[in-house]
């Protein structure tokens, strides 16, 4: 379990001399797999702000790990430029390629990549030894960082005798020991079981925020991304689709892909009929739906409407006033502990909805539903 010490800040705080922003422009990379060429990165432009937890989120195969590996120098892009802070580490045009060992970064791999022939001390000391630091300094710094990840006293433990959570902390200590400018994480929690993963996620957030370090975090787990990040970049098919804070991405996403990928979503097709005050009126197969208006949009445009299950309200017959009220029939209802999830049929269309676990509703019952207009998002194709 990653339960990080809270009081040791004064012993070990990497000193960010400069604001280590990462600027990526026009980055492309092709791979050929079994004779077929495919584009892992497609003209990616991205600025990762300093001292933030920045998450790259996307389904497997979207290019997120390739992007991370390009930043760290384990892959060579086909075109574009990467700058870390003031330094250009890769540029096709200027023929610059700084090898990974000269980039001064820290990285936690998905497999942790703990060297099995070394003990904990040797694993953590490695980055300092590679830099030929004096022995005394190495000893002191390793002790400090092990204290920080609560592995003090584990110095002589062989790497093969560590649990998954301990390996993860050794990997973190190793990534931090040389005080890197930026630390990168490649799905570091995917090898832990569900409960440990949730706890570790919280600890990691607290820890990284306190260190004031630029952290780039790659994951396919949307819950992990939402709870951990300051900023999320959603990727698909080698492109960055959308960038924003977790709340922006969740409540105000612009793209169908993003709304669908993050959380649970009911997505309907529609067409803009009218604009009234700050709301749009759209025609859908359910009938007219009033939606939030986030940006200028012309009448007649085809759009998607996203309604998240947790915002679908069930109302009593006598409260039936306001927009977006529909009569539906409960098709299924499943009790899953902290809530009841079900499907409700309105005409030919089924929507996911949820109610509190103590709800007396039954399958087959007819209910009135309301979609609050502020939670009906308009998405682009």
């Amino acid at each position: 379990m990653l339960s990080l010490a809270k009081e040791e800040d004064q012993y070990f705080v990497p000193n960010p001399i400069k604001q280590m922003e990462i600027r990526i422009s026009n980055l492309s990379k092709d791979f050929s797999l079994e004779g077929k060429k495919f584009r892992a990165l497609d003209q990616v432009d991205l600025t990762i702000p300093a001292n933030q937890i920045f998450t790259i989120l996307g389904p497997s195969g979207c290019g997120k790990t390739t992007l991370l590996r390009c930043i760290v120098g384990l892959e060579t892009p086909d075109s574009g430029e990467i700058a870390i802070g003031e330094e250009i580490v890769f540029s096709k045009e200027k023929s610059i390629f700084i090898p990974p060992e000269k980039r001064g970064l820290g990285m936690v791999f998905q497999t942790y990549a703990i060297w099995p022939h070394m003990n904990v001390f040797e694993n953590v000391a490695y980055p300092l030894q590679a830099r030929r630091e004096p022995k005394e300094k190495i000893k002191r710094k390793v002790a400090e960082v092990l204290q920080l990840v609560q592995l003090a006293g584990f110095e002589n433990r062989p790497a093969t005798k560590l649990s998954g959570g301990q390996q993860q902390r050794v990997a973190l200590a190793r990534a931090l020991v040389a005080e890197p400018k930026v630390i990168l994480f490649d799905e570091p929690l995917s090898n832990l079981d569900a409960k440990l993963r949730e706890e570790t996620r919280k600890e990691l957030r607290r820890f990284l925020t306190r260190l004031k370090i630029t952290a780039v975090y790659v994951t396919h787990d949307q819950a992990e991304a939402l709870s951990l990040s300051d900023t999320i970049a959603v990727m698909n098919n080698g492109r960055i689709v959308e960038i924003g804070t977790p709340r922006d991405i969740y409540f105000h996403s612009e793209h169908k892909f993003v709304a669908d990928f993050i959380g649970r979503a009911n997505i309907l097709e529609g067409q803009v009929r009218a604009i009234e005050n700050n709301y749009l009126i759209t025609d859908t197969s359910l009938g007219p739906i009033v939606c939030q208006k986030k940006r200028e949009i012309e009448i007649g445009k085809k759009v998607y409407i996203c309604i998240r299950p947790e915002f679908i309200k069930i109302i009593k017959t006598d409260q039936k006033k306001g927009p977006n009220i529909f009569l539906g029939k409960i098709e299924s209802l499943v009790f899953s502990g902290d809530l009841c999830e079900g499907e409700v049929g309105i005409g030919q269309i089924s929507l996911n909805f949820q109610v509190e676990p103590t709800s007396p509703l039954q399958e087959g019952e007819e209910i009135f539903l309301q979609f609050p207009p502020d939670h009906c998002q308009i998405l682009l194709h």
Partner: protein
Amino acid sequence: MRRHAPALTPTLIAIVSFLTVCPISMLFLGSFTEGWEALGNFTLQKYIKTYSDPAFAAIIKNTTIFTIGSALLATALALLLAYLNTRTNIPFKSLFGILSIVPMMIPHILFAASWALLLNPSNGLINIFLKQFLGFAEAPLNIYTLEGMILVEALLDLPIAYLVISPAMSAFDVSLEESSRVCGASSLRTTLKVTLPVLRPAILAAITLVAVRSLASFAVPSVLGMPGRIYVMATHIYRLIATGFSPDYGMAAAVGMSVLAISITLIFVYRSLTAEGEKYVTISSRGYRPTVIDLKKAKYPLFIFVSLIACLLIVLPVVVLFYTSLVPYSMVPSAKALAAMNLKHWQAVIKDPISMLSLKNSIFLGILGASLGIILSVFVAYVIVKVRTTASGLLEAFSFLSFSFPGIVVGIGFMLFFVRTPLYATIWALLIGYIATYLPYGIRPISSAFIQIHSHLEESSRVCGGSSFYTMRRIIIPLLTPGIVSGWILMATMFVRELSLSVVLSRPGTEVLAVQILRFAEDGLWGKLAALGIIMIFVSTVLVISASLIEGRIKKVK
């Protein structure tokens, strides 16, 4: 490392394809030409002569019976042992692990010779014993028969069959059997209808692999077959080049081509069988343990049976050799024999210049050959596992192909090549031949070590600030060391005892231990044979121990 990989792959392909393609193409050319000087004059004469020889039919028949017989016997024994080990509560299971590494310890020629010492019709120890104490008029047992050859070859190949069958047996999903029993089938019916069919790919793979080995086997047919004039393909080739007044390399090549064709076919059958077997294994659930069958009363009788096989394999050959090296002539162990014991044979061997030369040559070939072979193996394994391009696939195919090459056949091919170079009759000819033939044995342990080194281990070292050289020194080499050491041990012990290639390539001045032992066997000098044989076992053991010690030092230094 990625930078020099493009140059590395073609270089390696050039070296490995020279080592594998060269002897085979020379063999091919040689089989169509008249004599080894006149390469180029095409003739079918050698094939016609080979196949029109009326004695050749008997050779084919012997080879078939010997190969299939030993394959079936070895597999049946392996099946029994694997079943007892993985599925029953038989005591002292560690014994089975020992059984599987025995062929590394005892050279085949010595094993065959020790059986000749025990069961030859004129003065085999067991035969003398039976005649003296049980009143048999004639020797009741004769090892110089096809049955005797099959028995000894099967015992030698048993560990190989065991190594193929045992993993399949441990991965076997017992619920398949249980559901058959629930459906109302009897225990026997379940075994016949469920257990054996599910294990079929592994069983067939074991049979095929043992068949490849016994087809290539030279030690057993030469020591046990030739005295009784029972010839198989391998000894027929040997007869064509090593006995008589004019060695006929063309005809030997023609026979060799036939053996090679069968061998390559078998190895492809083996490969497709194991590919199928892996499919079965991956289906089985993880973390599952087979239920153990209580043997009850049969527990100890079965254990005694297994111990008996272990005794036959390990203890008996060494004991018989040691005993024979000390007594002046064949006699049953007795007070008289004990009194007559002396070191005459040992002194004779140590004073024999050819024996000492062969010892020197074998040690030289073992140490230098294994070291060069392992360096080549490291690069080849690296390209096969880590580079993974179409070209590296070609490299894998080449090194895999040579796995099927029978030593004596490759020897003929190399001989036809070396006779045109200054390397002929030098120790370097043997060195090159050894490395070519045994390269897969070096590649295998190293490539499995490479597979275990996940690319993240390398990459994280780079990110941590280690240059590619630093990464090589601190991460790759230390993680590779166990694979390198076990590959080196395997190669070195095989080189020290190498026989089937050496009988062709070894010339006056380049004698090696196994060939010298074969000469002693042919001349019936069993005492000298035994003394030199024990020296050979000793040399192998010293190499194994010192390599392990060096490995320990490397681990400590790091």
